[in-house]
């Protein structure tokens, strides 16, 4: 009874809080100072057609480095915890007990997986021109990997390749940032390479390079988490 009352009280409280937020909300008629700066100066400063990408990779590049680090830490902790479990369990795998994969899934994945991987690569290579970028593209690449794993649960991804892609792209990302300190305006400045013409694939300085590296890194991290989980399932 008391438990239900507390839950009800909590719901009413949350409702009042959100209602006061919604009632007092009036949309801004014009952009505020920061938003106006980004909207007006992005094209001259960075040469990127997608303002969101310019903010994420250049203006707030350090925050992105932090985000990538957080993702890297969580992927390594998942790997660490699951690897510990693998050492303790000595039971041999029992492939006979597993549910057979459907014909539809195994045939469909052969056509769909390359297309999904290609879409992911397209999204992160074109991050400075169209919506999306490294994080989104990386997640799409990882969902392609997930489809491959679902179609063939016994598939083994090479952990060495995943770890190699992950560390090399991380190192290059930081390396480009440091080079920016010496040859351009500062850490992660995109004017290391010429800005080019607005809308070209090779424009906006190093933004496409950095976002491709982030996409590879994020894709490798998610794939390593999925591969670790599916291998644990086989015990």
């Amino acid at each position, binding site marked *: 009874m008391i438990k239900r009352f507390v839950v009800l009280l909590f719901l009413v409280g949350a409702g009042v809080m959100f209602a006061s937020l919604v009632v007092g909300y009036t949309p801004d008629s014009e952009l505020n100072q920061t938003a106006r700066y980004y909207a007006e100066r992005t094209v001259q400063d960075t040469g990127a057609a997608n303002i969101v990408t310019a903010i994420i990779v250049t203006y707030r590049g350090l925050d992105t480095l932090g985000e990538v680090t957080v993702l890297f830490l969580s992927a390594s902790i998942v790997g660490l915890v699951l690897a510990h479990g693998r050492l303790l369990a000595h039971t041999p795998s029992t492939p006979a007990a597993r549910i057979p994969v459907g014909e539809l899934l195994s045939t469909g994945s052969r056509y769909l997986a390359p297309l999904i991987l290609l879409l992911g690569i397209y999204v992160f290579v074109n991050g400075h021109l169209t919506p*999306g*970028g490294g994080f*989104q593209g990386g997640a799409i690449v990882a969902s392609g990997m997930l489809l491959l794993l679902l179609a063939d649960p016994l598939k083994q991804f090479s952990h060495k390749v995943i770890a190699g892609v992950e560390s090399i792209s991380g190192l290059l990302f930081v390396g480009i940032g440091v080079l920016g300190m010496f040859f351009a305006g500062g850490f992660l400045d995109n004017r290391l390479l010429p800005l080019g013409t607005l809308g070209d694939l090779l424009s906006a300085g190093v933004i496409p390079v950095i976002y491709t590296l982030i996409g590879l890194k994020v894709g490798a991290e998610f794939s390593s988490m999925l591969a670790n989980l599916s291998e644990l399932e086989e015990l």
Partner: protein
Amino acid sequence: MSTLMAGITILLCLTMIVAAFMTVISKSLSIVILSAGLVSLMASVLFLVFAAPDVAMTEAAIGSGLTTFLFFFVLSRIRGGERDGVEHD
């Protein structure tokens, strides 16, 4: 915002609320995971309606795609525990 857009937004929000209730109420863990994924999917369409395609992409790929399947992976791993949870309820 036009009437059509407002209608779509309201429909999406109602679907999200129903799916969220399903997540809390349902006894079957598979339905719980699927309806939690549905909340994310509707949220990503909602972001698209609000002209934020970058956020919508992240939500669709991570929120409704990867997380849902991650939960299913874990669910298949702890299959034995499901019966337990229902009995205690």
